[in-house]
């Protein structure tokens, strides 16, 4: 899509034609949301393939966080439909969305710093014995946690280390691992590479790629940093003023092209604003 075509498109761009219907794990049709006088979403038609990593790009207030909050069950949409694996769903709560395998991963909010890696992985899904007493099977959980982390190629030096003593990247990896271990099929990642060095980032990029390619986990990534998005994602959606303004495979675009698109949109908006003021 070129700069000349993009402004004022009323219909959203056609989603990627290569996605077969059976491979679509998450689909939204015409999602709208307003908060009082503010229209946050004006009809979002979005698709997410199995094992696909989709990046959401957009300025503050463009509507991407509203979209994510609807997808994770925090807000209900005003109108529009959400389909998970072809079935229409409606979420009344975050727990509802989690029931359908959709889970948000926050970098610093997800873990309890004073609990160990294994304890964090099993938080509120503990394995216990003696029924209602809830006596912890600590050894079993340790072993399962170890095996699972090995499976998804996350190497944590000490499974009994407190989360507090881990690096930001390791904590993020544990948070992602917990979500997928608990059968999350669609992960919503909010700035997963924020405040990380190159090595740390590599750990998360590898994990995201491994989970999406080898385990079919789909992910939606929000990030302001184009470099991060190009590293992580298969496809990018640019959201502007509550709609998807651009839907592009990462391999078909570049940081420069995307920047140009967004800047031109911004200029156009500024010009429109000035016109309004002059009237």
């Amino acid at each position: 899509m070129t700069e000349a075509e993009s402004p004022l498109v009323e219909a959203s761009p056609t989603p990627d034609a290569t996605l077969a219907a059976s491979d679509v794990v998450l689909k939204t049709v015409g999602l709208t949301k307003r908060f009082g006088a503010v229209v946050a979403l004006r009809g979002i038609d979005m698709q997410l393939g199995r094992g696909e990593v989709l990046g959401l790009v957009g300025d503050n207030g463009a509507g991407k966080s509203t979209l994510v909050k609807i997808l994770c069950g925090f807000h209900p949409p005003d109108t529009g439909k959400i389909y998970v694996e072809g079935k229409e769903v409606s979420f009344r709560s975050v727990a509802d969305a989690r029931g359908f395998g959709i889970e948000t991963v926050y970098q610093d909010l997800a873990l309890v710093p004073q609990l160990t890696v294994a304890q964090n992985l099993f938080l509120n899904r503990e394995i216990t014995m003696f029924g209602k007493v809830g006596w912890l099977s600590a050894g079993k959980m340790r072993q399962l946690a170890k095996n699972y982390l090995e499976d998804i190629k996350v190497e944590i030096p000490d499974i009994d280390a407190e989360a507090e003593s881990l690096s930001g990247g390791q904590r993020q990896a544990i948070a992602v691992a917990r979500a997928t271990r608990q059968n999350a099929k669609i992960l919503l990642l909010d700035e997963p590479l924020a405040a990380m060095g190159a090595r740390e980032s590599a750990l998360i990029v590898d994990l995201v790629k491994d989970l999406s390619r080898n385990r079919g986990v789909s992910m939606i990534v929000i990030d302001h940093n184009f470099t991060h998005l190009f590293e992580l994602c298969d496809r990018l959606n640019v959201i502007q003023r509550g709609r998807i303004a651009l839907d592009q495979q990462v391999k078909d675009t570049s940081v420069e092209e995307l920047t140009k698109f967004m800047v031109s949109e911004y200029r156009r908006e500024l010009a429109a604003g000035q016109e309004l003021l002059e009237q």
Partner: protein
Amino acid sequence: MARATASDSETPQTPAPKGPGSVAYWLVQRVIQQRELTVVLVTLFVIIYFGIANSAFYTTANIITVCQYLASFAVIGFGEVLILSLGEIDLSAGAVYLSSPWFMYLFWTSGMPIGWAIVAAMVCCAGVGMINGLITVWLNVSSLIVTLAVNYALFGIVLIESNDIQVNMPGQTGRFSIIFGVGAWSTILWATAMMLAIWALLKRTRFGLHVTATGGNLLAAAESGIRVRRVKVWCFIIISCASGLIGILDAIRIGSINPGSSGLDTVLPGIVAAVVGGTALTGGRGTIIGAALGAIFLGVLEDGFNLIGVNANWFYLAEGVMILVAMVANTQLGAVARRFRR
């Protein structure tokens, strides 16, 4: 695909022990990592010091005195470990400790058998804990203020009911009395039993893990589906029941109950025992063993000062200074331990 390895991490890892002396290094590392290390050291220090200063310190009679003295704030300390792990605090435990024998006395004088009077008093204590918890979580008032208010209210209820007149406790005879407080080792054995129970609850059960999670990261705990409010209310109920039970046992041991004390003198040593033992005031970290050692530290301190005949006027100053010393040692050694843990 590149493997994510430990070396990817930007934090330096603890170096693996190498060469000669590695066993010693490992041992030192293990010892320093123990959160309870400081309190072990200061407790050993006061025990040795008072043992040298006065030979009467190691007599059975004196050990019984210390045990009877420290049982109350040890038990309150165990309860506070739970509450502090949540990131809350309970200042009403002392008032519960003092008022539960009154509840029992009132039920007994109204014609209940003594066993049932104890049960009924425990139900009242659970009710107090529930009120503490529910006001804290549902009306979103700081537990410090809620429990302080409940502390004064309970004190007031006891004063009104008793008309500020001392009474004699029932249950002073027979095997019953030996088990419930009068026996020389009775209260410390009950305290030990409660220590084991609360330790197992906190460190070995799902509930205890949820307590730590709630105090460590409330948002993450709630996000993972833990019913954090319910966990909190239960902890307030547990500390009230524990304090109430040890209160009844102490009252039976002493033989009479006096309405003229507000309870803060009882709950504060309990909190000090928990905190000196290594429990964080900010939540997420609690050690029951530490609280037990902290209670022993306070008990030995008080008893030792009495034995060596410290002037009563100097007593509180000395106690205050010792607590400060213990806490400063705690934070300083804690910093060293953290370096070893990483």
